[in-house]
């Protein structure tokens, strides 16, 4: 048996745990373990006083392992790693045991059951800690400059934010002009500003800042270097076909979206007078007074919602595009202000005018627009009659399935956002792409702009459909994330990555094929034996390669086979 000196701290969480778990019984049960030299309970382990007490124990008893049994690891893992580090204990020789979210709070009805589970969970934490090796994060120096890819509203605003916080910025735009989709928009909610006007203003701000280098007609053609100091090659087209190289510490991807383009014949698309929402918005924006399409006055409009969104199993766009309900309702009100007599019918599946946008929806209804709900299996049908009039037939779910025939001059297909085709960029940056085709953050709430690729963040509508306001907010989140990393001048990489045991590896190549990040390479080991080797700075620690290794030569540090099996043994064992 190994002889370890482990300290165990069982938290009462001011009653959140101790009201449902007999923490003293848990303490006594684990104190018997020969490797446990300190076992205490505390009112709040996260309090400054208890943190100091833990640090003192680590120093006095020369602890080489720490187990804190309190809340979810999502809350205080960094807190207790810090305590360990301050006291001279390697922070990766610490295990957080989840006694609150996954025990006391889930079993408030069963004190004995919750207490016995607590004993098992803490024993599993001790079993893991017994086997933990000290790990050192790879520390990298970071260059105080960011690359922003895409100069739409999110990218422009992010570039300004970065410059104002004292970081250098390389801002590149694939198109000849900056501003993306917002440049094309008319009056925007809630400030009634024109899209073009907003973009001009932001462009002016960008130009005023010396720290921002803006390139249009420009693309990223290569990414080299390593995290903290990526080398990026930017190629510009046009008069000066040239490639420039920059060193950057972070990369913010703000490449935006495409609008869904209906298929020919989808809800009558292709028939004159059947428009997509972006086409219709341009028509309304350009119109002064009564609306005219072709040379005919427009007296009535039918909007059909969810076109190209929520496609079910049949289509690639199974998601709700979020912004389009609000955009259609806002367009209704814009048109109403210019041409109050136009009849507007909204044929929807579900309305999603969330937050303050509900006010727009109410306003539209109060002013007389009609909203008719259809079921996905009986979608509206659009036809063009002989006299050129458009006819829309719909079963109104809120009026006993009655079929309603609408004669209208225009049909507006409320189309959503779809992911942009950006295969080359995805390849170059190894961007994680979700099933919906948009880029994936690590966690939508807890780490909303970071990707698993170190130093690469995403913002704006390349992430999922967003309004302009939400895009700007995420752009600024990416600024904060960049600043937190680059202003320090150094960053740490999680050392809990996959490793290969060269004694077991026979280099079959399976792991190399399985890693989408290119973290696994080949190395010659003494003589002519080839083995796989994993770059800790590139490995994301997902462990996807490990179960595929036929020789069981790969383990993720902190989650090794021995550690997991030791936890299983403790969880399965009796508590007596």
């Amino acid at each position, binding site marked *: 048996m190994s002889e370890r000196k482990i300290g165990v701290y069982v938290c009462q969480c001011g009653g959140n745990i101790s009201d449902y778990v007999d923490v003293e019984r848990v303490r006594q049960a684990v104190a018997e373990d020969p490797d446990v030299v300190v076992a205490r309970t505390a009112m709040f382990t996260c309090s400054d006083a208890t943190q100091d007490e833990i640090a003192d124990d680590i120093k006095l008893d020369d602890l080489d392992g720490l187990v804190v049994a309190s809340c979810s690891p999502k809350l205080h893992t960094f807190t207790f790693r810090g305590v360990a580090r301050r006291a001279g204990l390697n922070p990766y020789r610490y295990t957080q045991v989840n006694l609150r979210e*996954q025990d006391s*709070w*889930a*079993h408030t009805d069963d004190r004995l059951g919750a207490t*016995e589970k607590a004993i098992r969970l803490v024993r*599993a934490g001790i079993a893991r800690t017994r086997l933990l090796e000290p790990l050192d994060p790879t520390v990298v120096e970071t260059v105080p400059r960011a690359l922003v890819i895409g100069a739409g509203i999110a990218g422009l605003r992010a570039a300004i934010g970065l410059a104002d916080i004292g970081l250098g910025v390389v801002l590149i735009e694939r198109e000849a002009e900056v501003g993306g989709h917002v440049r094309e928009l008319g009056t925007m909610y809630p400030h009634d500003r024109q899209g073009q006007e907003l973009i001009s203003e932001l462009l002016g701000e960008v130009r005023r800042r010396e720290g921002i280098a803006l390139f249009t007609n420009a693309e990223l053609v290569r990414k080299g270097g390593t995290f903290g100091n990526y080398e990026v090659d930017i190629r510009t087209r046009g008069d000066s076909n040239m490639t420039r190289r920059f060193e950057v510490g972070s990369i913010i991807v703000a490449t935006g979206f495409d609008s869904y383009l209906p298929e020919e014949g989808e809800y009558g698309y292709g028939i004159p007078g059947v428009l997509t929402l972006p086409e219709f918005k341009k028509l309304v924006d350009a119109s002064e007074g009564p609306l005219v399409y072709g040379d005919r006055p427009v007296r009535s409009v039918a909007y059909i919602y969810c076109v190209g969104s929520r496609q079910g199993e049949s289509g690639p766009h199974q998601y709700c595009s979020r912004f389009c309900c609000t955009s259609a309702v806002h367009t209704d009100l814009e048109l109403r202000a210019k041409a109050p007599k136009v009849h507007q019918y909204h044929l929807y599946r579900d309305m999603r005018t969330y937050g303050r946008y509900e006010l727009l929806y109410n306003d539209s209804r109060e002013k007389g627009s009609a909203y008719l709900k259809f079921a996905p299996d009986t979608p509206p049908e659009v036809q063009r009659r002989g006299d050129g009039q458009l006819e829309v037939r719909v079963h109104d779910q809120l009026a006993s399935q009655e079929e309603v025939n609408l004669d209208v001059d225009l049909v507006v297909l409320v189309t959503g956002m779809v992911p942009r085709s950006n295969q080359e960029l995805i390849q170059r940056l190894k961007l994680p792409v*979700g099933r919906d085709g948009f880029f994936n953050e690590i966690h939508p*709430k807890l780490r909303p702009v970071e990707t698993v690729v170190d130093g690469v963040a995403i913002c704006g509508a390349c992430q999922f459909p967003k309004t302009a306001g939400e895009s700007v907010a995420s752009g600024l989140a990416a600024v904060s994330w960049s600043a937190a990393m680059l202003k320090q001048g150094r960053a740490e990489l999680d050392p809990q990555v996959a490793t290969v045991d060269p004694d077991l590896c026979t280099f079959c190549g399976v792991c190399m094929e399985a890693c989408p990040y290119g973290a696994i390479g080949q190395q010659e080991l003494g003589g002519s034996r080839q083995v796989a080797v994993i770059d800790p700075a590139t490995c994301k620690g997902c*462990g996807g390669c490990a179960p595929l290794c036929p020789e069981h030569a790969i383990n993720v540090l902190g989650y090794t086979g021995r550690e997991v099996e030791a936890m299983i043994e403790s969880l399965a064992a009796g508590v007596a």
Partner: protein
Amino acid sequence: MATTMAPPAPTAGTTFGPKILVFSTNNISDPGIDLAGSSHLHYSPRAMTIAVPCSSGIAPEWIAYAFDQGFDGVFIASDGEECSYLTDCSERSAKLFERAQAMMAEKGYAPERLKMAAICSVCAEPFVKYMHEFEAQLRELGPVGVA
């Protein structure tokens, strides 16, 4: 399949409470299981969770080992399509699941003792529902290792 929202009473004369090992993932399903607790949704305290980075990293050997050690059921709360590491995480997890069941068959463990479902970071209620259903099913199967 019938939905059981509360574990049924044990059959007469027995007090068998199945032990369930749950594998969760740090970024996706473990926060969902946390939320079940934060919402004070109850499930059996004999269900215990080990969190790992990604469901594509769960070795079939660990699953077989859990049965060897006396767990009556193993539930993989997988990343599904939300995995931030691997686009094909669902397919990878499904393959590992099949390998684990093959390993279980060799050792004589009923394949129904292993379950997998994608649990998102706010999927508290689905998780608890799965736990209740699984527990009921395991009660019918009886303790592991008993023919």
